[in-house]
């Protein structure tokens, strides 16, 4: 009886204990808040990491003597024949140099400070096919498209030119407008040339922008019609038919009906059947988007774990506060420990008494911390807005983070684990002074000093 009663009484009558309770409250609250925001950020990042990627990605490095079909048609047909596939489209990717200036002067190539030039990933797509296989079309918010979904030529452009859709950040960075001209330069393999490569350069007209939410993509991705890209690389003009030896596609994106359920099975079976049909060879690979972005997702997961471990240190600090306070208290209460022993308390009883003080600390601190922390995590966005409005400082820059609101995801499991962690941590730290209290010599404390 005295353990519960006295521990509670000691806790209430000693103000120093409030420091410990407050420490745990702060640690638990901050942990929940920070971890929720971290989880929110990571989930948001994960979502945007997926970005323009489809469920399955088949990469087919183009090389001269490949014995598979040159056209994407047969492969797309075979893939679409699978009932589990929602849609598929062919992409042709090529690294290019983008510059606004149409000058062949060496200056822009040697000026390391120049912002007039940038490396970009030029991606050839069939706009219509994209509907079923990626979220690409949805991201083309400001692009001019006709009713068939094809990218429209800008009427202000004199002669017909291939048009491109550039990432929002490309647009802003190079100060482009709809109808602006950009020059793309690149090199293609050319056995006839001394170096084995020959340079290509062409002007394109900007038809619009897209926004994926993923910085990397919005900063360096430029979309173009796939056949126009094939013509560009083959050196044919915009109106010519596509030359027969042109490289036509380098990857096929597949969207599934039920990604989370069937991705692995479809990947296995589709890969095998395509290979058997002679549509792909050993150089090709069929991967899920998660495998494709494996490093990034791994890094995200890693970051989450690392964050958790680092933040747990807060708990250790809070636990240490309890340790310090309880140690002080044991020293202060030596006489009381002696009295209790004289009145019939056992060492285990004394141990329990001081452990219980830690337990109350943890109980009050962790519960209130969990409640306030969770509430803050849920209300963080209006809270930040209120702070910003009240004090006129912007805490969360919505332009920098590409999110419209502070992402925050409260997971009950995390909250539970944090509360549990607070308890374990507190009790472990309380156990040391409690053990010391139980092993104090009662007589020493009772001697007349």
């Amino acid at each position, binding site marked *: *009886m*005295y353990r*519960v*009663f*006295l521990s509670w*009484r*000691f806790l209430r*009558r000693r103000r120093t204990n409030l420091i410990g309770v407050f420490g745990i409250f702060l640690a638990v609250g901050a942990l929940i808040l920070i971890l929720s925001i971290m989880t929110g950020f990571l989930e948001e990042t994960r979502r945007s990491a997926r970005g323009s990627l489809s469920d399955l990605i088949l990469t087919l490095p183009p090389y001269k003597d490949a014995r598979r079909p040159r056209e994407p048609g047969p492969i797309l047909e075979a893939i679409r024949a699978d009932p589990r596939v929602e849609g598929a489209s062919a992409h042709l990717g090529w690294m290019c140099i983008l510059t606004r200036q149409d000058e062949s002067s060496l200056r822009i190539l040697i000026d390391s400070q120049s912002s007039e030039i940038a490396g970009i990933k030029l991606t050839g797509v069939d706009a219509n096919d994209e509907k079923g296989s990626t979220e690409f079309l949805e991201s083309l918010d400001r692009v001019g498209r006709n009713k068939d979904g094809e990218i429209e030529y800008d009427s202000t452009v004199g002669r017909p030119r291939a048009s491109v859709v550039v990432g929002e950040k490309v647009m802003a960075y190079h100060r482009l407008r709809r109808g602006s001209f950009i020059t793309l330069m690149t090199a293609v393999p050319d056995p006839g040339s001394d170096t084995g490569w020959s340079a290509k350069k062409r002007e394109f007209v900007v038809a619009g922008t897209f926004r994926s939410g993923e910085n990397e993509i919005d900063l360096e991705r430029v979309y173009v019609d796939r056949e126009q890209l094939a013509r560009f690389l083959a050196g044919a003009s915009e109106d010519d038919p596509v030359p027969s030896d042109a490289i036509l596609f380098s990857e096929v994106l597949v969207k599934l009906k039920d990604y989370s359920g069937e991705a692995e099975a479809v990947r296995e079976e589709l890969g095998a059947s395509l290979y058997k049909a002679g549509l792909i060879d050993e150089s090709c690979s069929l991967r899920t988007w998660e495998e494709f972005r494996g490093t990034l997702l791994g890094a995200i997961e890693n970051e989450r774990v690392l964050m958790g471990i680092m933040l747990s240190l807060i708990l250790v600090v809070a636990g240490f506060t309890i340790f310090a306070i309880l140690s002080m208290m044991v020293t202060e209460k030596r*006489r*009381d420990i*002696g*009295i*209790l*022993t*004289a*009145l*019939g*308390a*056992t*060492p285990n*009883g004394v141990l329990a008494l001081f452990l219980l003080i830690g337990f109350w600390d943890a109980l009050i601190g962790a519960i209130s911390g969990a409640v306030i922390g969770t509430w803050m995590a849920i209300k963080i966005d209006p809270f930040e807005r209120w702070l910003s409005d009240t004090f006129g400082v912007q805490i969360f820059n919505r332009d920098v983070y590409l999110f419209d609101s502070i992402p925050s995801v409260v997971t009950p499991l995390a909250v539970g684990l944090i509360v549990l962690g607070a308890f374990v941590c507190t009790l472990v730290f309380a156990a040391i002074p409690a053990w010391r209290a139980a092993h104090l*010599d*009662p*007589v020493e404390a*009772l*001697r*007349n000093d």
Partner: protein
Amino acid sequence: MTSVPNVVLKARAIRKVFKTGDTELEILHGVDLDLVAGERLALMGPSGAGKSTLLHVLGLLERPTAGTVDIDGRDAWSLTTLERAALRNRHLGFVFQFYHLVAELDAVENVMLPAMIAQSSSEFRRSKAAHLKKARDLLASFGLSERMKHRPTQLSGGERQRVALARALFLDPPLLIADEPTGNLDRDTGEKVLELLFRAQAERSLSLLLVTHDERLAERCGRVLRMEAGRIAGAKAEPASLAR
């Protein structure tokens, strides 16, 4: 063992050696002591003679280096820690020179402390009303009716010692151990506390083991033992008379 039925405490050949670093200091050199039921025994002697040490050994707070202490017919120092704690709780009442009340508890709560230690939460809750009444009655009989809710810091030395006495008596132990209970009080206050102590002892026919420096006080005890340098000097071997 041929234990005389009315002997409540029997100590034999108690030795206590303190080790401080490399030096060993023998404080008690084989002390024998019997305490009969209802007896009032005064232990006198100069400071440093080992009186407190002996009391701690007899009160089951400090393990002797050698020797036995029989309480309630059992060799207390060969019992388990738990059994020994129960003996302290039920059979022994302590009164110290410096009162030793728990600062966080009020007078009534301090008095009920032995019952709190003895009982589980549910047991205590069930008998709480009875405990409260008993504690209040005890305090009232010690003239503390107006001090029930006071905390130790709000009480005078004499009042504190009376609360401590009530606490020692709360579970009606057959044996009361008091180590210079008036040593920290002025003469008049000390007298009053002693009157209460003697009265309670007589009413309940407790065995009282009292350490004191006051000769007049010792005269009021049935038997006086003098302690010198860890030995009991001129001990009366014969059983003590119960007379005042």
